[in-house]
C-alpha cells in the first residue's frame, strides 16, 4: 500500500497548523493549531506503520495523543488563569519575558 497520499495530507495539515500557530493571536486557536500539527504527525506515523507492516508507529501515535492531552491541560489552564485575572486573551499581550 502506498503511503504517499497520506504523507502529503499529513504535510498539508502540518502546514495549516504552523500557519495558524504563527499568525493567530488567540491562544485557543493557537492550541487548536498545535493539535493540528500533532495530529498531522500522528497521521504520518500511522500511515508509515501500515506501509511497513510494523505496529511501532501506532504505539507512538498513542503516546503523542497522551502528550497532546497533557499539553492541552496546561494550555487551557494558562488560558483560564489569564481569564481570571481579566487579562486580554491575546498571546502578543503576554510578552513580559522580553529581555
Amino acid at each position, binding site marked *: 500500500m502506498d503511503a504517499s497520499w497520506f504523507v502529503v495530507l499529513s504535510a498539508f495539515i502540518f502546514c495549516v497548523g504552523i500557519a495558524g*500557530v504563527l*499568525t493567530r493571536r488567540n491562544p485557543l486557536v493557537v492550541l487548536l493549531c498545535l493539535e493540528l500539527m500533532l495530529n498531522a504527525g500522528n497521521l504520518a506515523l500511522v500511515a508509515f506503520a501500515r506501509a511497513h507492516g510494523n505496529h511501532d508507529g501506532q504505539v507512538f501515535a498513542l503516546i503523542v495523543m497522551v502528550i497532546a492531552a497533557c499539553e492541552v491541560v496546561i494550555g487551557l489552564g494558562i488560558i483560564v488563569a489569564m481569564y481570571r485575572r481579566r487579562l486580554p486573551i491575546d*498571546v502578543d499581550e503576554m*510578552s513580559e519575558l*522580553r*529581555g
Partner: protein
Amino acid sequence: MSAGSYGWIILAFPLTGMLVVSLGWRLLPGKLGGWIASGAILGSFLASVGALGQLHERAHVDSAWTYAATLDFKADLSILVDPLSVFMCLVVSGVSFLIHLYSVAYMWSDRGYARYFAYLNFFVFSMLLLVLAANFVVLIVGWAFVGAASYLLISFWYRRRTATYAGIKAFVINVIGDVGLVVATFLLFDQTGALDFSGVFKGAHEAFATNDATLVAACLLLLVGAFAKSAQLPLHTWLPDAMEGPTPVSALIHAATMVTAGVYLIARTHPLFELAPAAADVSAIIGTATLVFAATVAATVTDLKRVIAYSTISQIGYMVLGVSVAAYGAGLFHLMTHAFFKALLFMGAGSVIGAMAGTQDIDRMGGFRKAMPFTFVTFTLGALALAGFPLMSGFFSKDEVLAFTLHRGGGYALLAVLGYLAAFLTAFYAFRMVFRTFFGEPVEEARELQQGRLAHHETPRNPLTGEEEDDDVGFQGAEHHVAEREWPMKAAMGALAVLAVAGGFVGIPGLTDTLEHFLEPSFADSRFKDTMPSDGAEVAGLGVGALLSIAGIALAFLVYMRRRGLAGQLRRRFSGVHRFLVNKWYFDELFDRALVRPAAAGGRFARGVVETDFVQGTIVGGATAVVRAGSSFARTLQSGYVRAYALGLLFGVAGLALYFLVASS
C-alpha cells in the same frame, strides 16, 4: 671571654633595652624607662671596653649562624671585632650613653617618653650592628636599620607636619643610598664570589686590575651609599631638615653617629678604594666641595640647629676627605673628636632652645651668658673645639686630615687649601653662634631666667612655621628643660666638654699618636701606610690651622661684638650673595625643579592619561563595550512574543532538516 663574645654582648644590651622599654612601657613608672635605656647603652660601652682589652691587635670574626651556604659561598650572621670596629663601638656607645643620659631629663615632659627611648635604643643597636658587621649582608641590614631608626626619630613628633615631611625626605634619600650599597655589593659579589669583607678584599686583588671599570663602578656605588648616609653633596639636603627631630636625636644620629657611617664604610672598604684611586679621588673632591659649601651656608642661616647641622655636613666633609686620601687614622680621629664636640654643641643648643621655650632662631636670642653660665661655658668649649682653637680636640684632628692631604701633593694640595679656607669659615660661624646667643643685650627669656623663671608656652608652637600645636600625643609638652636645672643634662654636657677639650690629646703629632697606632692593624694592608707627613710638616700645619682659627674667631668678634651694624651692612652690600647662601645654594629648589616636579608631572600624566584614558578607557572600557554590545544584541532576540520564538524554532528545525538532507544525499 673572647673579643667575639664581647661583640655579641655589645649588640645584646641595646636590643634588650629596646624590647624591655617598648614592651613594658606601661609597667615602668616615672623616668625608669629612660634609665633602663641609658643603662643598656652603658652596658654596651663597658662591653666595648672589654672587647678592647681582649683585642690583642688582631681581627676576630665570630659567626652566630649561617644564612645561606652553597658550594663555595657562605653568608653568615657574623661580626668582625677588630681595632676599627671596636673604636667605632667605643665612640658610638660612649657618646650614645651620654646622649641617653641627657635625654632622661630633656625629654621628661614629652608624651612619648618611653617610645623615644625605645627608638633610641633601636638606633644604637642598628648602628652597632652596622659597625660590627663582618660581611656585606649584615652591613646592609644595619645600614637599613639605622635609616629606619633615623626616620622614626626625625618624625618623632608625628603630629607636626614639617617633622613628618622631613622624615620622609630623609628616608627617601637614605633609600637611594641603600640601593647604591646593595648594587655595589652585588657587583663585588659577582666578581669576587664572596660577601665577607676579607674574602671580598682578597678576591678584589685577584679579580681587578687597578682602576678596573667594574671596580670603579662598585666603589662609586658604595660612595652613593656613603654620601646619602653622611649627607655629602648632592645628597645632603635631608640633614638640615632632620633637625625637626628632638634635639638629643640631632646630637646622636645627625651629628655623632649615623652620619659618620659613610666615613666608616669608606674606611672599612679601603682596600677597594686603594685599588680604584679614581673613585677615591671623586670621593675626596666631593668631600672638599661639601665642606666648603656647607661652611658657607652655616655662616648665613639663622636657625641655631641648622647652623650646627650645616657645620656637621662640613665636618663630615673633612672626614670623607681624610679617609679618601688614605689618611684613615686622621679621618677617624676627626670622626671621634667631632662626635664629642658636635654632640656637646647640640646639647648646648637644646638647653638654649629649652630656655627660649622652643624658639630656634638666633636672631631672637642673645645675652644668655649670665642666665645660663654652665651652658655658656660648655657650648663655648664645644665651639672652640669646632673652630680648631689651639690645643682643643678639633685642632689636632682637622689639621691632621689637612696635613695628610697636603702631603699627597699635586691636585690634593688644592683640596687642602680649600680645607684651610673652610677652617677659617668654621671658626667664624662657630663664634657667630656663640656671640649671637650668649652675648649682647639679654632677651626677655634670658632676663626671666636670671630671675629664676623659665619661659613656658601656654601652647607649644612649631618653631619653623609658628603654627600652634596641641600637646597631646606626638608633641613635646609645654614645659622645657635647661641644663642649669637638670643634673643628668649637666653631667652629660660636662663629660662631653672634658672630652671635647682633651679628646685631641690621643693624636698629638710626634707626641702621642695613640689612636693611629691603635688603628694600625686594621689598615696594615694599606699602600699608603708609610706615606705620612713628617712631624715637622704636621706641626707647621697645626700652626696654620691655629692662625686661621684665631683669625676666624677674631672676624666673628669684629662683626658681631665690636661693630654691631657691620653684619647688617654686609648683608645689604652683598644681598645677592647672602640670598644665595641663605637659600642653601638653592639645592632644594634645584632638586624640586629637576626631580620632584618632573616626577610629579609624570605621576599626573600616568594618572590622567595612562590610567584614565588608556587603562580605564581603552582596555577596561573596550572589554565592557564588547560585552555590552553582545548582550544588547542578545536582549533584542528575547522579544517576549511566543510566536516569534515559534518562528525561530521552525527555522531552526527546517535548517537542521535541510542540513541532514543535504548531508545524506
